[in-house]
C-alpha cells in the first residue's frame, strides 16, 4: 500500500504478508465484528503487529543492563533497530517468549471489545 502525501514523500507500508497467514486469517475473523471493511482490518492488523513490536522493544530495553540500555536507546534514536536486536542477542535475551507473551496479551485486548 502506498500513501502519497503532498510533498512527494512516498511512504510504503508493508502488507500483512510478512506475518503468518494463519494468524492473519484469525485476526480478520475476530476483527470482523470491529470492522466489516477488509482494508480497515488489514490496517488494524498491521497496527497490532506494530504494537507487539514496540512493546517487545520496550521489554528488551527494560531487561538490558543500564549501560547496554543507554547504548541501545542511542541506537534506537538513530533508527538502528537491527543493532538493538543484536545487543539483545549478545545479552542473551530471548525474544521469542517475550513476543509470545506480549502478542497473547494484545490479542486478548483485541478480542475483548470485539466480543462486546
Amino acid at each position, binding site marked *: 500500500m502506498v500513501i502519497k502525501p503532498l510533498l512527494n514523500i512516498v*511512504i510504503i507500508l508493508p502488507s500483512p504478508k510478512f506475518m503468518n497467514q494463519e494468524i492473519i486469517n484469525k485476526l480478520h475473523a475476530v476483527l470482523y465484528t470491529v470492522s466489516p471493511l477488509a482494508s*480497515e482490518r488489514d490496517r488494524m492488523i498491521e497496527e*497490532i503487529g506494530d504494537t507487539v513490536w514496540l512493546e517487545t522493544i520496550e521489554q528488551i530495553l527494560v531487561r538490558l543492563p543500564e549501560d547496554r540500555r543507554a547504548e541501545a536507546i542511542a541506537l534506537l534514536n538513530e533508527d538502528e533497530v537491527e543493532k538493538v536486536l543484536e545487543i539483545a542477542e549478545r545479552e542473551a535475551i530471548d525474544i521469542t517468549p517475550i513476543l509470545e507473551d506480549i502478542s497473547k496479551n494484545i490479542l486478548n485486548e483485541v478480542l475483548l471489545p470485539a466480543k462486546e
Partner: protein
Amino acid sequence: MLQGQQFLFSVGNEVYFVHNQNSMNELKVESSETEKTTMEGNANGVDLSMRLDELQRRIERAKTLDENASSRPFELYVVAKKLAEVLMGSKIAGEILDNQEVINNAIAENGGDVNNIAENSVIVDAVAKDTAMQESVLSPGDAVRSWRENYYKAVNTANEKGVIDFSKKEDEEGVDMSYVQMADGSLYENNKTEKTAEESVDMSYVQMADGTLYNSVEQSNDERVESNAGHPEITNFASTSEKSEETKSSDRYEWNDIVRPLDGEVDDNGAGGGGNYGGNNGNGGSGGGGNNGGGNEGGPDSDESSPEGRGRLTEEEYDSKVEDWKKVVGAMRVATERREKIINDHENRIIWKLKNLGLKKMTTPLRLKIRKSFSNLKEKTKNLFGFGKKKVYEGTVETPLLQEYFPQPGENLSTIIKEQVLGVPEMSTLTQEQKDTIVQNLFTYAKKNPYMSMFDQVNTFSDAESIPSGTAIDLQMIKRLISFPVDEFGNKTIIEYSNNPS
C-alpha cells in the same frame, strides 16, 4: 502563499478564513466557532491569529472530545491538510513538514483519502451538516451568517485602519493583492470588471460547499443594495468596481452576493458555506464532480479524472453520492473508534514508556524499521500470538478468493462453499463427504454464535435454498471462518476438526 493571499472554506459547521497578512508569513486563521474569542481584546479588531501549531493543538484536543469525537478529528485534519496545501510555498513550510506526517496519518486513520481531500471536504460538510441538523445545533447557515457578520465588521475595521486594503491592487512590497485564492486553489481576480469570451464562466450558478446549487443571478441589483443596507461599509467595498449587467454574472469577486436556491426559497445555507467569498464557485472543498473554480462547463460525461474535466452533478446525483459516502464514513467512523480503543491506547502507553526510557521520537521511519526487523525474524514471528502450528496447507500457493461473489441462479450457500471455497486446487484432497462435513460444522458453529457479525452471511443463508440475486457472498471471510482454531473443536480449525474429530 503570497502575502495578502487569502482563501475561505468551510468544514462542517466551521468556516475558516485564512490569509497571509504580513511579511512574517504568519498564518492567520479565523473560524466561525472561535469568533467570540477572536473578536475580543484585539486592538485592531481583527484577531485572526492561529498558527499551525495552535491548530495542531486543537486537533489533539479534539481527539479527546467525547461529542462527535470520531468525526471532529477528521474535519480538523481536513483543515490542517488544506492549510498545509496553501502554505506549501511559504516560509513556514518547514513547520508543515513536521506536521505532515501527523496530518497524513490522521487522515489515513480516519479513512480519508489523502489524494482526494477536496471530495472529502465536501463529504464531511454534507455529513456534518446532516449531523448538526439532526442534533439541533447551530445550523451551518446560521453559523456562517453569524461569522460573516462579525467578519465583515472586523475586516472593514481593519480596512479603515489600513491593516487590510482590498482596494489596492498591489501592496507596498509589490505583491499582487488583486487575486484571491479560492479553497480549490484557483485564483480569482479581485475587482475584475472585464471578461473575455474565452474566460467567461457561467456564474449564474454557484455550488455551495454542500453541493447545493444556487442561482446567483436571480438577485437583482435592488435586492443586493437592500441586503447591504445594514452594512454600508460593505457597499463601499463592493462598489470599488463597477457593476453592470454584463459583469453581474461574471466571476468578479463580490463579498456581498447573497445567493438563493434554484427554487427561489432562501435556504438555510444561503449564506454560503465557505464559498461565497467569490460570488463564484463557492465550493469550499472543490467537491468531487462539482463545478470548480476553473469555470468548468463540462457535463456529466466529462473526464472526471481532472478537476478541469469534472462535470457538474445534478442535485439528485450529488445527494445520492453523499448518501453512499455517509454510509461508508459512518462505518469507518465506528471502526475507527473501536480501533482507537483497541490499539492507540495500548500503543500510546508503550510509546510513553519508551520515551521515558530515552526514546526521542517515534517516527514513521523508525516504526517501519522496527516492523521490518521483526518481520525478518521468521521463526519468531511464526510464534506470534502463540500460534506455532504448521499451517495445513503451508507451502502451497493459495488461490485468491473473491470478497464479493455473486451466486449463479439456484446456488445455495452450501454449494458455493463446497465449490468456490473448498473446491480450490490446494484443497483438492478433500472428498465430497469431507466437504459436506466442513460445511455442516460451519453452519452449526455459526448458529451457536448468532450475534457475531462475522457469521451473519452464514446464518442468513445457511438454510436458504437459494440466494437472492445481487447478493454478494464474501468468500474470503468464509475461508477465514473455517481456517482459524475454534475452542469448541479442541482448538482445531473447522477444516481440521471435520477431517479428524478426535
